[in-house]
């Protein structure tokens, strides 16, 4: 009894929605901290920090483990949500002729499925644009810095050990290195090898910063992407404005003394988080 109850009952579905939802809120905070690196005052530093963050997110084993939980959460949250919505529709086969829903509920609370679906669409396109390229794009650019040396501009790769390697000393592959006689070459997209010894001498950063900035600064569609991004964040804010406090209620974490605080915090959290997310592409487009 107890076992099937925790898996199948109406309340269990609520628990899962709440737990996955709350976990995704935590993920949002992590993601936001990273994104905020883009706002560093100096462009050079912003790129550096952002790419460092991107590397951390894709290489740290703990973070990696968490990322799988995140994927699962998104999946579960979405499937569970659709399942709930279908069931809830079935619970009222004949609707009202006249219904005054705004008298007793907020718009967001009534439209969580719609808001959630929009958020899901956003997540998919967002992942295709950034996460997919970061992970799978063979042409993912590497992070370079332009420095002026002796009155001449020169490009350098930046290694994770904070060395500067002139770009023109590095060949894209071993064959190329042999052909051109360059001393270093790149293997496995980010590893810097010594052409003679054929040993790894350093690790380079993928330039997610450039991808991001280029994406929003595209001459034809850049502005559209910025607008869509901001709208998506508004949708997310509405979703969170109900979802955050709601998950506490679903888990039964309710107390006359503390619940009002959670409600307020949830509202502030959803607005501030989404606002900060939304500022970034606007900044990129208009300021950078």
């Amino acid at each position, binding site marked *: *009894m*107890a*076992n099937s*109850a*925790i898996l199948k*009952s*109406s*309340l*269990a*579905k*609520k*628990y899962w929605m709440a737990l996955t939802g709350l976990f995704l809120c935590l993920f949002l905070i992590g993601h936001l901290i990273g994104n905020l690196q883009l706002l560093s005052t100096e462009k050079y530093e912003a790129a550096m920090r952002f790419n460092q963050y991107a590397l951390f997110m894709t290489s740290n084993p703990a973070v990696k483990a968490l990322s799988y939980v995140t994927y699962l959460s998104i999946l579960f949250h979405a499937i569970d949500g659709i399942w*709930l919505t279908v*069931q*809830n529709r*079935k*619970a*009222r*086969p*004949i*609707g*009202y*002729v*006249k*219904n*005054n*829903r705004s*008298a*007793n*509920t*907020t718009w967001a*609370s*009534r439209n*969580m499925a719609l808001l959630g679906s929009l958020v899901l669409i956003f997540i998919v396109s967002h992942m295709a644009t950034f996460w997919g390229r970061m992970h799978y794009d063979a042409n993912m650019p590497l992070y370079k810095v332009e420095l002026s040396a002796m009155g001449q501009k020169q490009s350098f790769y930046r290694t994770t050990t904070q060395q500067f390697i002139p770009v023109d000393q590095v060949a894209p592959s071993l064959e190329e290195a042999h052909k051109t006689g360059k001393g270093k070459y790149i293997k496995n997209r980010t590893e810097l090898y010594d052409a003679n010894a054929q040993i790894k001498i350093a690790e380079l950063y993928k330039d997610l910063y450039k991808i991001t900035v280029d994406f929003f600064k595209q001459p034809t569609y850049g502005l559209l992407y910025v607008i869509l991004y901001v709208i998506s964040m508004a949708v997310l804010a509405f979703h969170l404005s*109900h979802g955050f*406090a*709601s998950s506490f*209620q*679903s*888990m*039964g*974490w*309710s107390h*006359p003394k503390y*619940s009002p605080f959670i409600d307020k915090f949830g509202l502030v959290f959803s607005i501030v988080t989404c606002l900060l997310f939304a500022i970034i592409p606007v900044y990129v487009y208009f300021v950078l």
Partner: protein
Amino acid sequence: MATKFININLKVWRQKDAKAKGQMETYKLDKVSTDSSFLEMLDQLNEQLINERKEPIAFDHDCREGICGACSLYINGRAHGPDRFITTCQLHMRSFKDGETIFIEPWRSKAFPVIKDLVVDRSSFDRIQQAGGFVSVNTSGNTIDANATPINKADADRSFEAAACIGCGACVASCKNGSAMLFVGAKVSQYALLPQGKIEAHDRVLNMVRQMDEEGFGNCTNTGACEIECPKGISLENIARMNREYLTASMS
């Protein structure tokens, strides 16, 4: 607060029986006293229909003082009409304007099938109660003295507030998901807050929720419509308490 008389238009759901297909019918009713209750207005309409040799509208009602929970009308898109903390029978015509068109529909829920016109079958609530809404004590009277177990006043008061539920079903009717969690949450809470009810609290919440699910009620998405429309102001806190109770019960 002088008595006024208003003329109104009504759009009422008419349905011959459980199997028939229903539809909204329009009626005109003149000279309705603003001191009349909403149900007295319907009495007046029925009297008019009977005099026209038409069949009167069937609707559930009994005590007409807001406690039996029988009356159950969805008025102008809201359970028990526009005011808060009242049942349909406590709604008065002074809440409506002269010339207004008023929509009257039955509760809509898979678990509350329409029997006739505005009358629905709420026996699903009874079955939930039968699944566990009680303390398993026999009725011999051979229990301990009523004052042998002191109960913290705050707990007793909160238990009473939950127990004030009249089982009208407005929570289900106004929930966009047709969920019965406020009703079940209130019942679970009433007992969970009292030492007498704690003993079988786990079985109770598991059994009542199982029955609730079987009846075809929807799932709670915490929109809070139930709390707003509940004539007795039953708090959402009771749903949270049920969630808590259920979680502990299903893990132990």
